[in-house]
């Protein structure tokens, strides 16, 4: 019996930041990361019928994204791609889809602080996805994007005092969530 449901209408709100952060830490280019996330979403749509509900929607999307990142490195045939494939491949094991099997995660196996940073990023995005949409948007724009108060107020058509009340509520929820998940 599948435990997880799929709902593409919620993908952007729930997973776009998480996937984008995941990608940019691996390709170091904002535009490429954006394209890869978009490709992953489109590929997800196409293969929706293959979703069995055994893993969570996010895990499933991440597995698609990982393949997209591998394809990207294959295409550019960069030194980074070569190095990572060389490091992770051992000829005496598993034949077949060795690249996917071997390259799926080595990006995570770098320095300890990078892993911790990536996990911290995951925890932050986990907590952010639990906030009401408006709070998440304001918090993201102010705290992560670092936009000016005035810019956000103009864009979202809210007053400054309104913005600070939203930020206050968001920070309380974020701190509580991070307390449980990280601190």
């Amino acid at each position, binding site marked *: 019996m599948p435990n997880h449901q799929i709902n*593409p*209408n919620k*993908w*952007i709100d729930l997973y*776009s*930041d998480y996937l*984008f*952060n995941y990608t*940019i830490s691996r390709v170091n280019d*904002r535009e490429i990361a*954006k394209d890869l*996330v*978009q490709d992953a*979403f*489109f590929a997800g*749509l*196409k293969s929706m019928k293959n979703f069995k509900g055994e893993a969570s929607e996010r895990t499933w999307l991440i597995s698609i994204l990982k393949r997209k990142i591998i394809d990207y490195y294959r295409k550019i045939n960069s030194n980074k791609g070569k190095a990572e494939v060389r490091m992770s491949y051992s000829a005496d094991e598993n034949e077949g889809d060795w690249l996917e099997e071997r390259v799926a995660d080595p990006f995570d196996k770098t320095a300890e602080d990078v892993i911790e*940073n990536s996990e*911290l*990023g995951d925890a*932050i*995005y986990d907590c952010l996805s639990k906030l009401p949409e408006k709070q998440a*948007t304001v918090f*993201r*724009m*102010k*705290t*992560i*994007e670092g936009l000016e*108060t005035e810019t956000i107020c103009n*864009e979202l058509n809210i007053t400054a005092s309104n913005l*600070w*009340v939203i*930020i*206050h509520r968001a*920070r309380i929820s*974020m*701190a509580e969530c*991070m*307390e449980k998940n*990280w*601190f």
Partner: protein
Amino acid sequence: MYGKKLVLIKMKKNLLFISCEEAKLICDRAQYNEATLWEKIKLNLRYTWCRITRAYVKKNKKLTEAIKSSNVQCLKQNERQELHEQLKHQLKNQD
């Protein structure tokens, strides 16, 4: 005469002493370097004797430091919107 003095004392008190809620909002603004010097003084004054304010400041700073050290990046609002539209379009075409 006595009434005027009382009003003056109250005004001075209001100028220096802030409520817990106000202190929390100032603390939030301080995380983004948007609190004025006067607000910071008022916050610090409350911080010295209010246990709740101290706890809030500690939690708030911890959150700020965690976000800073994580170097998280996200899509800009217009990029999210664009992606949302494209996904919607793609979904529609698929149906």
